[in-house]
């Protein structure tokens, strides 16, 4: 891409999205408050508002947790209702936090926050160690295939900064994590309240030689987080200007789901299966040589084919799975239970279709990670392995290989609400 040359490093930062998970009172809000405060993302007027609120509540410290207090209903009940998004940056990276509440019933929020995350920060209270909720958080990180997991053992100040406590928690986590599909797990002993090892290195734990949380967030290696091998371009919209200057222009607009396409590449258009060559790649007035996930752009093909929204452009020699009978892991989000044999609307990439739930294979007990082959009732916050049959063939990859072409949502056709998050096995 021809970038206007502007010599400003702040115009060229990386973006990292991470989600935070912890149980009630793990100090998650305090940790986020600390990250925002120490990276100067909290402004004077916000800080003054928090100070006023802390004094009003008769608290000893400025309660940084109040930074993340959102809606009035939450302030009244002292809980978090929904996923909240927070922003801060350092000279190196811009960060988007999906802050998800930790109550038992809010698995659906965590799944939502995890779906786009590069990293998960899981909090463990040093006094309580690994508890059921820790297992659940780690399982969801694994199920949603969040590339990096950072376990923060918090409240180290309340266990006299003892290394044994930290080591034991690390050991315990590893024991159950062997059942999970986590590839990059780090552990950091912290005190969010006092700031130890969050941004600044702790003076109280010289036995810990690893990075601080901020250092890790700034330096996690994220360029492999996208699937770079399989080029996938779901067609989102067809651009036909029908103007005098661009009389025959026909461009396929979309966002690369994974991989790279270059001008001249031989490609196949699904579902028709016709092959052709990429003639041009445009974005705005720029003619590009290539397009790489997650870029948006417009692809122009050599041949005049019937291509519309919902089609997918893939390399000629690169297979993609297709079929109408799909096995997937589902996280149920709806307040009404899933109906076996029920029909739902389905969204997958830029495709809208319908499906029927054929079979519940097993339900996952997310506290013990055991598979339950007997209990087939799937209600809100349940996670299960199911099979569905779609009204027309789906072109997909397994979620393991591709988080974009391997994910789908189910929608209640009467209420129009999103009821299921599916990850294709």
């Amino acid at each position, binding site marked *: 891409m021809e970038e206007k040359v*502007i010599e400003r490093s*702040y*115009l060229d930062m*990386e*973006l990292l999205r991470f989600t935070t998970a912890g149980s009630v009172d793990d100090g998650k809000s305090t940790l986020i408050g600390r990250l925002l405060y120490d990276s100067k993302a909290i*402004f*004077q*007027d*916000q800080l003054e508002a928090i100070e006023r609120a802390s004094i009003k509540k008769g608290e000893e410290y400025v309660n940084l947790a109040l930074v993340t207090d*959102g*809606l*009035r*209903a939450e302030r009244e009940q002292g809980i978090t*209702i*929904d996923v*909240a*998004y*927070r*922003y801060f*940056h350092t000279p190196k990276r*811009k960060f*988007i936090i999906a802050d998800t509440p930790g109550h038992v019933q809010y698995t*659906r*929020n965590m*799944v*939502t926050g995890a779906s786009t995350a590069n990293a998960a920060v899981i909090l463990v209270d040093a006094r309580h160690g690994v508890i059921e909720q820790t297992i659940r958080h780690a399982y969801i990180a694994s199920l949603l295939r969040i590339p990096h997991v950072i376990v923060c053992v918090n409240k180290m100040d309340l266990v006299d900064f003892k290394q044994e406590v930290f080591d034991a928690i690390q050991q315990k986590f590893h024991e159950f994590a062997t059942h999970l599909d986590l590839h990059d797990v780090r552990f950091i002993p912290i005190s969010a309240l006092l700031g130890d090892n969050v941004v600044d290195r702790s003076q109280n734990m010289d036995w810990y030689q690893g990075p601080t949380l901020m250092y890790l967030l700034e330096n996690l*290696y994220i*360029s*492999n987080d*996208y699937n*770079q091998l399989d080029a996938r371009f779901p067609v*989102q919209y067809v*651009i036909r*200007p*029908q*103007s005098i200057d*661009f009389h025959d*222009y026909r461009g396929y*607009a*979309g*966002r690369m789901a994974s991989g790279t396409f270059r001008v001249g590449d031989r490609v196949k258009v699904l579902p028709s299966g016709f092959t052709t060559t990429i003639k041009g790649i445009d*974005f*705005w007035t720029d003619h590009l040589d290539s397009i*790489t996930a*997650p*870029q*948006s752009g417009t692809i122009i093909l050599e041949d005049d084919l019937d291509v519309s929204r919902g089609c997918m452009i893939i390399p000629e020699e690169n297979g993609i799975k297709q079929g109408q009978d799909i096995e997937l892991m589902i996280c149920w*989000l709806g307040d009404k239970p899933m109906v076996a044999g029920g029909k739902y609307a389905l*969204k*997958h990439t*830029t495709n809208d279709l319908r499906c029927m739930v054929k079979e519940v294979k097993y339900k996952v007990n997310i506290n013990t990670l055991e598979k339950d082959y007997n209990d087939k009732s799937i209600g809100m916050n349940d996670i299960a392995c199911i099979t569905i049959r779609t009204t027309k063939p789906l072109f997909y990859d397994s979620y393991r290989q591709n*988080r*974009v072409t391997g*994910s*789908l*949502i189910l929608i209640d056709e009467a209420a*129009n*609400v*999103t009821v299921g*998050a599916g990850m294709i096995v």
Partner: protein
Amino acid sequence: MSNKVPINHLRELESEGVFVIREVVSQFENPVMLFSGGKDSIVMFHLARKAFYPAKVPFPLMHIDTGHNFQETLDFRDWLVEETGVQLIVRYVQDSIDKGRVVEETGYNASRNKLQTVTLLEAIEELKIDCAMGGGRRDEEKARAKERFFSHRDEFGQWDPKNQRPELWNLFNGRKNLGEHFRVFPISNWTEMDVWQYILLENIAIPSLYFSHEREVFERDGVLYAKTPFLKMKDTEKAEKRIVRFRTIGDATCTGAIESVASSVEDIIREVAATRITERGGRADDKRSEAAMEDRKIEGYF
């Protein structure tokens, strides 16, 4: 494999915004893009132009005009429309007042900011708009932090923060019943700094109000207001000429100026980086109560 992410943060945010706008056009029949003349709606419109080029933007801009705008904002709006050939719909708060749909606030802090909601909802109903895109950002205000990209509104235009649809991956669910509509926020994930950096990167034109200029202002409750016919001054208040600029552009009645000599986008970026007050810190509409934005959003505000 390269060891660098394929695109930087501004290009990723741009790509995300373009994707969302293209989804809107694909999923809705009669969308509009709300346009205030402020930097956020200008950036959002810039993304729309990029999303459909070389075709024209396939939806109109809609301006809810309170009648209390700065003239510079209106001039800029008309220039942009002329320049890009986009269709513009304007609806006036004054019409809602004349029809008796709303009652104008009185007193020294009277503002038409809140009345805009009624005019907006009337326009949505009248024109059968099924999606209104807005330039809201999640970093602006705590109630906005929980907003979805695709935000569902019931037949009364209300937002139910406790019953929002989960939004996963990049799969946006715009299904709705008759009479309901959506608000969509393509630049949800941008911060004030991102917006300014992007304006610099793309060399986007913005109203002169954002740059330092001399103006008659007076101080009230620690905020500098422009002296305009729309805002009644108290006897004790005195207007004087100062060198100021605006960090946000809203109504003259509720938008505060700051003293500044920033005369280029790069100056503004340096200033924003150094400043310790949020941009809405100068907005009287948010200061009304702790949950002012939440209340307005539930009623159907932008």
